[in-house]
């Protein structure tokens, strides 16, 4: 039964279904219980599944992820909530040195099917540490799968896939899109869905390819719509998985269009855009009419709220980059 719901609500439904389907699934984090999380993503779940399934934890991110590792060894499937992007770093050691490596260390004998949910990105007028995009810190870590969603339907499918997967998954949620609505088929069987590891052509086009993920997919789609009015046909690809990236879809597109622009909120230097540009440049060398261009956050700490509009990539900057690509 398809319903029109917000992205936040679709995550809530996805978590609920995961809790229902597998008694080993547990949710843990700060304020996930009675409060339902500061974004209400876990709203009502503790009430319905109990304090053992939806665990309000001490205020300690290393503790959240570290105990999740132990629970996973015990056979559980923990879903950890990190309250905001800027607060994941106390858990960084557990994530990159333990979660990412346990399977490798044990030669495949110990699985830690953990999902680490992180609301990320800016645009909500918040104070420091509440608007960051740390995905590149995780995507560079073998052993972790890193994914993000851009719309309610994907959110619903992907959160369930991430939980069902035995791979440890860092699941970035585009917090400024929590309130955006879309149609979601709540009864669709998971088995019928695309694989977790798959990019999506969000809008087909022929003149240039825009690569986006998470909160920036909306911006890319808006840019493509605007460009269409000017007679330019832009293809928009929603990466969905950031590590590993579903390159075949990307290469096919760029070879066809000859131009690519990558967009993300994180600072440009060392961001995922560089990796994408490098891979595309290598694979599509003879097809490229212009270098792969990037529209990203600047190489500065995330600025104060009243500057964020100028910091965040927007439609104008994206179209400007498309223009530059065509003008190369």
């Amino acid at each position, binding site marked *: 039964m398809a319903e029109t719901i917000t992205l936040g609500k679709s995550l809530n439904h996805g978590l609920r279904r995961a809790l229902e389907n597998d008694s080993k699934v547990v949710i843990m984090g*700060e*304020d996930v*219980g*009675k*409060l*339902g999380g*500061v974004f209400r993503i876990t709203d009502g779940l503790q009430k319905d599944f109990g304090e053992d399934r939806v665990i*309000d*934890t*001490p*205020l*300690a991110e*290393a*503790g959240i992820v570290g105990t999740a590792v132990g629970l996973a060894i015990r056979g559980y499937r923990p879903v950890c909530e990190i309250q905001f992007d*800027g*607060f994941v*770093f*106390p858990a960084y050691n557990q994530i990159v040195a333990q979660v990412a490596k346990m399977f490798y260390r044990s030669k495949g004998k110990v699985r830690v099917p953990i999902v680490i949910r992180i609301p990320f990105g800016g645009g909500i*007028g*918040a*104070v*420091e*540490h509440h608007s960051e995009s740390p995905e590149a810190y995780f995507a560079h870590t073998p052993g972790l799968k890193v994914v993000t969603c851009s719309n309610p339907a994907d959110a619903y499918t992907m959160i369930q896939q991430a939980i069902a997967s035995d791979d440890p998954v860092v699941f970035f949620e585009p917090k400024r899109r929590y309130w955006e609505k879309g149609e979601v088929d709540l009864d669709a069987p998971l088995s019928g869905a695309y694989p977790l590891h798959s990019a999506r052509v969000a809008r087909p086009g022929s003149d240039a390819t825009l690569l986006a993920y998470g909160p920036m997919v909306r911006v890319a789609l808006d840019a493509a719509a605007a460009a269409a009015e000017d007679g330019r046909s832009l293809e928009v690809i929603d990466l969905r998985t950031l590590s590993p990236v579903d390159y075949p879809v990307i290469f096919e597109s760029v070879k066809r269009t000859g131009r690519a622009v990558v967009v993300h909120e994180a600072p440009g*230097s060392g961001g995922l855009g560089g990796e994408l540009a490098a891979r595309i440049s290598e694979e599509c060398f003879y097809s490229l009419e212009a270098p792969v261009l990037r529209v990203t956050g*600047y*190489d*500065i*700490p995330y*600025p*104060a*709220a*009243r*500057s964020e509009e*100028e*910091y965040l990539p927007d439609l*104008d*900057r994206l179209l*400007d980059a498309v223009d530059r690509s065509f003008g190369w």
Partner: protein
Amino acid sequence: MAKGKAVATRPSGGGTDAPAGGFVQLLTPDGEHVGSVTTADGTTYSVDFTDEEYRGLYRDLVTVRRLDAEATALQRQGELGLWASLLGQEAAQVGSGRALRTQDMAFPTYREHGVLYCRGIDPIMPFGLFRGVDQGGWDANEHKFNSYTIVIGSQTLHATGYAMGVTMDGKTGSPDGEAVIAYFGDGATSQGEVNEAFVWAGVFNAPMVFFCQNNQYAISEPLERQTRIPLYRRALGYGFPGIRIDGNDVLASYAVTRAALDNARNGQGPTLIEAYTYRMGAHTSSDDPTRYRIASEVESWKAKDPISRVRAFLTKQQLADEDFFGEVDENARKLALDLRERVLAMPDPQPVTMFDHVYPNGSPDLDEQRKAFTEYHASFEGSGH
């Protein structure tokens, strides 16, 4: 301002324990002034204020509450992006804030507006942060008051390092020495970094006070999610004293903090103070506390209000009359109005300034980004964009 008589000695090695009542209290909710309190380890706490000083404390309490209320209003009106109210925690902050000597250094969280005020700092200082025009932007050393720290607990290690520096500078071991105070909440006590700060403070005998405002909640999580025993006892595991005070009693907060700071400056090392108090409002303006706590709990804490007990005391002791209380309110109102006007007048940042202060020595790469940014925005000039 106020100078309290604070006990300078304590039994070595042992952990100070709570007195019979569970915490050190010098002023009851009814406004009874208890002359002195002796804790289980034999330390006696008392204060010895002049009438003027008692009135001064009342003025501080009322003023910081009034300024806080103004900020809450400003937030509701859309003039601040966020506000973290101190409502209910005035006594803990004013008592400890006034206990600091000029040379002492404070490391706050995001809620210590009352301490800031008691340091003699213009209360507008943190409003840039909450309005979203900057991220603080003040000089920690100039004000002896570090940046507000949002990542829970990180400042406790900064404070400990700073205190190690005080020792290295030879500024301890005398009554004129320097001491350091680190503020944090009950939730923060679960963070690894905070416990590492306890380790370091113990090992290096750092001249510092860990001041934990246990306001019973970390957002929605009640105290029992962080500990199964009273928090002040955490210090016992690290070999320095821990003590619980009635955090709604400005006199206890003053007396115990002053004594602990003086112990620190005298070279006797760290102390953990747990100020047992209550967050009367929401966690921040983004929070809805009705989802996780019941009205009767809030009501019961209203009876322990930190301000009304001082007023009752002043009245009973005839240290102040209605005229005084009226004047204090009026003065606070004026300060709040002035604050409001100045907050509203805060200019938005020039966008290009976001490229400033990334590196003391700059970065050629970033300079280019700044240049491109300026040119890009100039291209819209006059285009009505």
